């Protein structure tokens, strides 16, 4: 394994900076939809930074990365299922 100290350090700085932007964004009175899109984009970026750099996913094989990415569409499918259920007020 190579020495990635600088990468780890700048990744932490990037994550902290993105957190500051998140906290700042909720206080500046952005339109609701814009705020949600911004916050979710920052969150996805932060998650990718942790997974790729700290969890070393960028150094893993494609097969492992695909295996790990598989639950994401499953979770989205579940989200769709919940939304569908809500139309019936949580009853069958």
């Amino acid at each position, binding site marked *: *394994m190579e*020495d*990635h*100290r600088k990468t*780890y*350090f700048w*990744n*932490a700085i990037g*994550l*902290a900076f993105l*957190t*500051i932007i*998140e*906290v700042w964004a*909720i*206080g500046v009175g952005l339109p609701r939809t814009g*705020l*949600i899109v911004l*916050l*979710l984009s*920052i*969150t996805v970026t*932060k*998650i990718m930074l*942790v*997974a790729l*750099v*700290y*969890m070393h996913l960028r150094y*893993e*094989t494609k*097969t*492992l990365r695909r*295996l*790990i990415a*598989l*639950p994401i569409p*499953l*979770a989205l499918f*579940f*989200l769709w299922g*919940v*939304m569908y*259920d*809500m139309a019936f*007020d*949580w009853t069958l």
Partner: protein
Amino acid sequence: MDQAIPMNKTFFGTATTGKLGMWLFIIMDGLTFGAIIIGGLGFRISAASWPVAGSILDVQLTAFNTFLLICSSFTMVMALNSIVKDDQKGLVKYLALTIAGGVIFLGIQAWEYSHFIIGSEHLGKQLAAAGFFGSQFLPTTSIYSSVFYVTTMFHGLHVLSGVIYLSVILSMALKQKFTSSNYDRLEIAGLFWHFIDLVWILVFTIIYLI
């Protein structure tokens, strides 16, 4: 004809079976978190009203907690980096810092819960402004509080598990059980700790900011 190729080398590179096992656990645990978060979102969408971000929950304090977990992820990965260079002192130092980060995170979360459960006049005013009755913010106060407690407590239990797990790893490190050619258990523990950080990033946004 024997053309068997080690599965690790073919599909998963140099990942050990232990590491693959931890990844599978993370996938399963991630789906559990996903169900909790999506369930909470479902309740939120169907609720008549939902408090504005920061009206009850302390965003600044939790942002500090987020920063703390980011720092602990950094120290965790630095612990791994230390053992790769056979730096035993660095390993112990960074592992201890990671555990300290987790303990402080839990302490702040416990303080936050106690503040809500004990209640106060100021909290009562905040709750009234958000449309709730009483001066305490309990799991039974509303759907909002239930979603908050279930999500953050489930995550908090993961942090507690992580702290215990890393304490065991630290005790092994103190006995110098890891070397530059034998650090698989440390890497696996690190994966779990980073996963806790990763989930918190999502919980922080969904519960505290949006």
